[in-house]
C-alpha cells in the first residue's frame, strides 16, 4: 500500500481522469450487486423469455383481454411467478440504470437528483405491481 492510496477516498477522481475503485472495508455492496446481476440475469432469461413467448406468440397481444389475465391470475402459483419476474426484472433494471447514471452523471448533486427520480419511479412501479398481484381478487371475473 502506497501513501498515495491511503489518502484517496472512496470514488475520488484521479488526476488522469479515471476514478479509483472504491475500496472501503465497510461494505461489499458492489460485490453483492455484481453477484445479484449474474444470478437474477440467469433467472430472468427463463422467466422473461417464457413470458414473451406465452403472451406475445401463443396468446397474441391482438387477442389479449382482462378475462385472460384474470383467468391466469386466479392461480396463485402464476401470481407468485409474476411477483418473481417483476421483482427480479425491476431490481436488475434499477441496478443497471444505476451503473449508467454513475457513468454519465458525474456531478455529485446532479447524480443524487437523477438517482432520486429514477429510484422513485422504478421502486414506485415495483411496489404498485406487487400490490396489484397481492390484492388481486379472482372473483372480479364472476362478479361482472
Amino acid at each position, binding site marked *: 500500500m502506497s501513501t498515495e492510496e491511503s489518502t484517496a477516498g472512496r*470514488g*475520488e*477522481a484521479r*488526476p488522469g*481522469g479515471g*476514478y479509483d475503485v472504491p475500496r472501503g472495508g465497510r461494505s461489499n455492496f458492489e460485490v453483492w450487486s455484481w453477484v445479484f446481476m*449474474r444470478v437474477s*440475469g*440467469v433467472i*430472468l*432469461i427463463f422467466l*422473461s*423469455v417464457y413470458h*414473451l413467448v406465452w403472451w*406475445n*406468440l*401463443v*396468446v*397474441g*397481444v*391482438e*387477442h*389479449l*383481454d*382482462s*378475462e*385472460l*389475465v*384474470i383467468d391466469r391470475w386466479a392461480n396463485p402459483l402464476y401470481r407468485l411467478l409474476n411477483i418473481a419476474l*417483476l421483482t427480479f*426484472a*425491476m431490481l436488475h*433494471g*434499477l441496478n*443497471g*440504470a444505476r*451503473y*449508467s447514471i454513475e457513468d*454519465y452523471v*458525474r*456531478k*455529485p448533486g446532479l447524480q443524487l437528483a437523477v438517482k432520486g427520480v429514477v429510484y422513485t*419511479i*422504478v421502486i414506485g*412501479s*415495483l411496489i*404498485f*405491481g406487487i*400490490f*396489484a398481484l397481492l*390484492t*388481486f*381478487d379472482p372473483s*372480479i*371475473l364472476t362478479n*361482472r
Partner: protein
Amino acid sequence: MAKEYRSRSLGTALRYKGREGMWTWMLHRATGLGVLLFLIIHVIETGLIVISPEFYDEALLLYKNPFFRIAELLIFFSVLFHAANGLRIVVQDFWPAVMRRQRQLVWAATAVVVIAMIPVTWMMVAPLFGWADEPGTGRHLERCRSATTAPACVLEGSAEAEAL
C-alpha cells in the same frame, strides 16, 4: 471531495474502435434501459386490472395499434439480445479461459438472437399485410366459441359485423 469530472463527447466515444466488445457493451446498455422503460409502463398498465378490468381493456388498445408492432419487435429483440449477451458475460466471468474466444462468443450470441428473430419477425409482421393470421388466432377462435362475452371476442365480433 472529488473536484475533477471528465467525460468524453459522444463523437469521441463513437470513434473509439473497440469492435465487438464495445458494440455489444453499448447495445447491452441501450437494450437494458429500453426494456426497463417498457417494464415500468407495462407494470402500471397491467396493475390497472385490479382497479378496473374495463379500464385495463381500454389501455390494451394502445398495444393493439399496428404501429405498436414495431415496438413489440424492438422489445423482443432487446430482451433476446440482453439475454444472450448477458449469458455470454456470465460464462466469461465464471470461465475466464474462454475470454480468448470473446469475439467468436459475441458472434455466437448474436447468431442465436438473429436466428430467433426470424420466425418472431414473421409472426409479428406478416399479419399486418394479411400474409398470415395474428399469433394465437386458432386459440382465440376456440375460446370465443365458448366465452362469447369475453372482451376480445366482443371486440372481434363487432369488427366482423362491420366488415359484413
